[in-house]
């Protein structure tokens, strides 16, 4: 499975919508176990993406991911900026090869996050959404329940990366904010794929 330019753009636009609609929700999650700004950060990224697309419509999928990456890197800051930025930058490079499958592309994004964040699964970060979803896509059973389960799995984890790790045991019992924003990303993807099937 691969995304055409209009599908990929729809995907990112849906993501942008969800980020804007859930800004305070993300801030609240981050207030509980972080510093309260994840919603504000992602909202800034969302607006920058919209601006970038409006300024210059992406000509192909690689361009689109690159514009997304640059918006994130230049406007988000914090931890999430370089993480989403690196994921989409790596995806932008990989998608230039004609034959890459969507599942492999998501895996490349997840790997970018791991590299930039020096992190892996089970650390209560957005990787705990990206990796299970890459896995599910490879198995061809990707849907909203996979996203939901991945997100929910972060609730009982003890954080070992990111700000929440300072709380040690007390980080348990809360959803990871970056996993919630990643869940919006992949819910948006399900919506786009669903329309097609």
């Amino acid at each position, binding site marked *: 499975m691969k995304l055409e330019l209009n599908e990929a753009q729809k995907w990112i636009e849906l993501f942008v919508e969800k980020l804007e609609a859930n800004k305070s929700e993300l*801030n609240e999650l981050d207030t509980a176990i972080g510093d309260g700004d994840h919603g504000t950060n992602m909202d800034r990224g969302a607006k920058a993406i919209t601006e970038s697309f409006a300024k210059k419509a992406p000509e192909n999928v690689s361009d689109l991911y690159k514009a997304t990456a640059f918006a994130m*890197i230049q406007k*988000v800051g914090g931890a999430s900026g370089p993480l989403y930025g690196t994921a989409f930058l790596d995806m932008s490079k990989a998608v230039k090869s004609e034959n890459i499958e969507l599942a492999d592309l998501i895996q490349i994004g997840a790997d970018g996050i791991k590299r930039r964040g020096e992190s892996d699964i089970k650390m209560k970060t957005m990787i705990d959404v990206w990796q299970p979803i890459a896995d599910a896509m490879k198995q061809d059973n990707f849907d909203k329940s996979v996203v939901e389960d991945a997100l929910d799995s972060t609730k009982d984890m003890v954080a070992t990366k990111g700000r929440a790790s*300072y*709380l040690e045991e007390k980080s348990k019992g809360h959803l990871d904010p970056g996993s919630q924003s990643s869940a919006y990303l992949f819910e948006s993807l399900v919506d786009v794929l669903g329309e097609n099937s």
Partner: protein
Amino acid sequence: MKKIINNVEDIVPEMISGLVKTNSDLVKQIEDTTAVVRNDKKFSENKQVGVVSGGGSGHEPLHAGFVGDGMLSAAVAGEVFTSPTPDQIYEAINAVDQGLGVLLIVKNYSGDVMNFDMAKEMAEADDIKIATIVVDDDISVKNSEFTQGKRGVAGTALVEKIVGAAARSGMNLDDLAKLGQSVIDNTKTIGIALHAATVPAVGHPGFELKDDEIEYGIGIHNERGYSVEKIQHAKELAHELIEKIMKEFDDKSGKFAVLINGMGGTPLMEQYIFANNVLDELQSDGIDVGFSKVGNLVTSLDMQGISLTIMKADDDWISKLKEPVTTIGW
């Protein structure tokens, strides 16, 4: 939430603009960024390794208030409690490099580490020599391979002062990075909060404490600490923090430097009372304090609270801490 602000999104650019307008003899803004760079005459006259720091806003006077001859060459301000982006850091590096390389002083948060790292990669692509030191003085957090590691808090101001003085005196980039790392290794901080900070975009305090409670071990971004207890007299608070910190030093001989730091909403009166108790107890423990300082240096918005930093320091570091410097906030 009651704050003297305009639109929440404009807080950082407006703050930097106010800071630059009221201190134009000291600093200027780098165009299209919220980074500031030295604007004094000596800056262009005396070549030295550039020293750049930065991080999320809300900790003023850190870092922009420490830009000046003998301290930072430039400072990059991110959004409130949010690391600045790589492109802004890259601009700051470019603005200060005089061919001798640039030292980046980063507080140990994943966001800061990653964004400064990306900026470093960008600058290195331009053949600028870059070294990075990561400040992690907050001993209330355990340092283990399974966590993010300790946080960078008030000790950052002392690191910037010593490294800045050394850079002014002509030290090269490698030695500067070594010096900085050694200072960091000898700097330990713990903070307490009486009242959490209110992040403007959130609109309410990051956590709630009862009318008679304080929290030990908080970070400078409303990160929760290691315990909530009934408030005690300043003397007992000083004792608790000194005990925790001094345990970290094997060798208690030689000189020490002390910083009593207000978190933004705590008046100087309380800081001096606390300082009095700290210095009395250190003296009765036979600790030789060669330098001490009190004030709001590394704040957390309107948080009410205080932090104590103790550094094992040699004579050279003490004299670097005492060197006169012209900045807004030191």
